[in-house]
């Protein structure tokens, strides 16, 4: 028998009110923790994947789409650029490193990326088993691809045209697995790497039944030797000013900066995040009000109990603490339930997410989540402060003489 027991017994006695209050707090905290976890994880992923890429050059179109397709491997490419022009840019004196990308095919939704050895230098890739690709039609798998597809070294598979789905399979050539990468913790875990020649090879010979205009046009593009994009690292930061302008004005290509575009993307998502954040804050304040009202109303009935406890020798402070404790206990339970809901929801979202490139998980915790616990305790204390203060105003003699 102690204060804790008295409080919890009283909360159990008013089951429905207590549950309502706990659920309100849990919802508020849950939404906040989902927002918090998701935006931190997305931010981390965006930053990690674009870490060493200063600029992306690709076909004209939406710069955001260009970044999404060639850095994060989410969206479709804007088009192709002539390999000749791209190679010219690669040898520009301002460029420290340029990585060509040829996209267009997938295997079970994992993108097949045609590139060269500069790609593995850019991302700092290392081999876990086997070796990097050397010849045409040899591939190296990202660790996650190897894990989920079950492909092993020496296995071969057919790529499918397009970036998702396996409708149009390139049956004439099979890729052969040469190696598997160590887990990198970035987008490369979900890619299949090969050389650019393989991608050309896939598309140069066409079966007679493929006759629609889109494919013939595409065949022509490939015969002219085109690539999808170029990832560029500058020699000096000064190039930030000149290089993009040079590309945009003097060539038929566009340059987009991952940093700028992901900032733009975030400001777009930001509106939604802000709305949800205010919604969560609204729910939290409703929870505060609800706890306040239920404690305040209960005080009318509890005055008796509290007056008796005073008669039994309890000090005013002890009873003040008792009422405060009840409010804080509700928000404390609510906060932990909310954190649990938040993590579980995010994990669930992660499981049902289609794109494996930006998978979210609820199984991580951030030290900042402690703030949510503090906020929970704070609103509990805030809501119970005024009801608890009434302890100091209760006239024991008058309360006990009145009939219940």
């Amino acid at each position, binding site marked *: *028998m*102690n*204060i804790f*027991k*008295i409080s919890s*017994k*009283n909360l*159990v*006695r008013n089951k429905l009110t207590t549950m309502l209050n706990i659920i309100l707090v849990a919802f508020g905290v849950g939404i906040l923790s989902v927002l918090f976890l998701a935006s931190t994880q997305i931010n981390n992923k965006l930053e990690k994947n674009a870490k060493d890429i200063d600029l992306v050059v690709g076909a004209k179109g939406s710069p955001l789409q260009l970044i999404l397709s060639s850095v994060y491997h989410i969206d479709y490419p804007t088009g192709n650029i002539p390999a000749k022009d791209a190679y010219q840019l690669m040898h520009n004196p301002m460029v420290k490193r340029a990585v060509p990308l040829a996209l267009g095919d997938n295997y079970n939704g994992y993108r097949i990326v045609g590139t060269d050895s500069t790609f593995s230098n850019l991302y700092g890739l290392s081999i876990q088993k086997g070796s990097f690709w050397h010849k045409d039609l040899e591939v190296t798998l990202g660790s996650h691809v190897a894990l989920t597809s079950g492909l092993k070294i020496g296995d071969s598979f057919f790529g499918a045209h397009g970036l998702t789905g396996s409708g149009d399979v390139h049956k004439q050539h099979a890729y052969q697995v040469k190696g598997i990468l160590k887990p990198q913790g970035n987008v490369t875990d979900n890619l299949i790497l090969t050389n650019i020649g393989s991608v050309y090879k896939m598309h140069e010979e066409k079966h007679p039944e493929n006759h629609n205009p889109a494919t013939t046009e595409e065949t022509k593009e490939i015969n002219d030797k085109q690539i999808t994009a170029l990832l560029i690292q500058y020699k000096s930061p000064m190039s930030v000013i000149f290089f993009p302008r040079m590309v945009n004005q003097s060539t038929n290509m566009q340059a987009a900066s991952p940093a700028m575009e992901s900032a733009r993307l975030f400001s777009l998502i930001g509106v939604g995040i802000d709305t949800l954040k205010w919604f969560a804050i609204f729910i939290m304040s409703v929870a505060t009000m609800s706890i306040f009202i239920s404690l305040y109303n209960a005080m009318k009935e509890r005055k*008796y*109990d509290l*007056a*008796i*406890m*005073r*008669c*039994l*020798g*309890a*000090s*005013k*402070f*002890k009873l003040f603490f008792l009422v405060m404790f009840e409010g804080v206990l509700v928000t404390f339970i609510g906060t932990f339930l909310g954190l649990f809901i938040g993590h579980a929801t995010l994990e669930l979202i992660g499981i049902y997410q289609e794109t494996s490139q930006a998978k979210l998980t609820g199984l991580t915790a951030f030290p900042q989540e402690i703030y949510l616990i503090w906020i929970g305790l704070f609103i509990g204390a805030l809501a119970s402060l005024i009801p608890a203060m009434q302890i100091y105003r209760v006239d*024991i*003699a008058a309360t*006990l*003489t009145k*009939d*219940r």
Partner: protein
Amino acid sequence: MIKLSSLAHVYDQGRRLKFPCWEIGDMEQWLLLGASGSGKSTLLYIISGLLKPSQGEVLINGTDLYSLSALERDKFRGRHIGIIFQRPHLIRSLDVLDNLELAAVMAGLPIDHERNRSLLADLGIDGLVKKYPDQLSQGQLQRVSVARALVNKPDLLIADEPTSSLDDENAFQVIKMLTTQAKDNGAALIIATHDARVRDHLTKTYLLR
């Protein structure tokens, strides 16, 4: 043991009550008589340290009750005075045993499980330990509240109109229970009442007019 001298209390409405001097010895049993509105309850609250009188002092075992700080007075009350109210107020969210233990916890004393058990047995309610106040009859509630008043081995047991809502048979039993329990537990007893049925059972009386 208890000494009241030149006590007076002025109500908010301006009515003034004067209380005659009163000395109570160890384990003495007193009746506090007076018509309704004569200030019986007020005097009881003053003796229990719940209501500060406008004038005069209350000495219990040589301690001047109203020279103590509010905190010390609460503690003093919890340890030395047991109060039984006209209606048996129990905490409704706690069962009988928890209500008993509450008395010790609120007074800041350790819980004496052995004593709680024997008190409940003496009052014939040891079978109700796990029941909640809603499940008890008026008479059972009364017994529990007597047990609760005795938990901390008080020097003084105060009962405010304990028989007013009871029939003759039950009133008689309650008075008997109070006098025996006070004696057995070594406490002095004050019963405030305007109930004529109680008068025959106690000899010492203090009359308020």
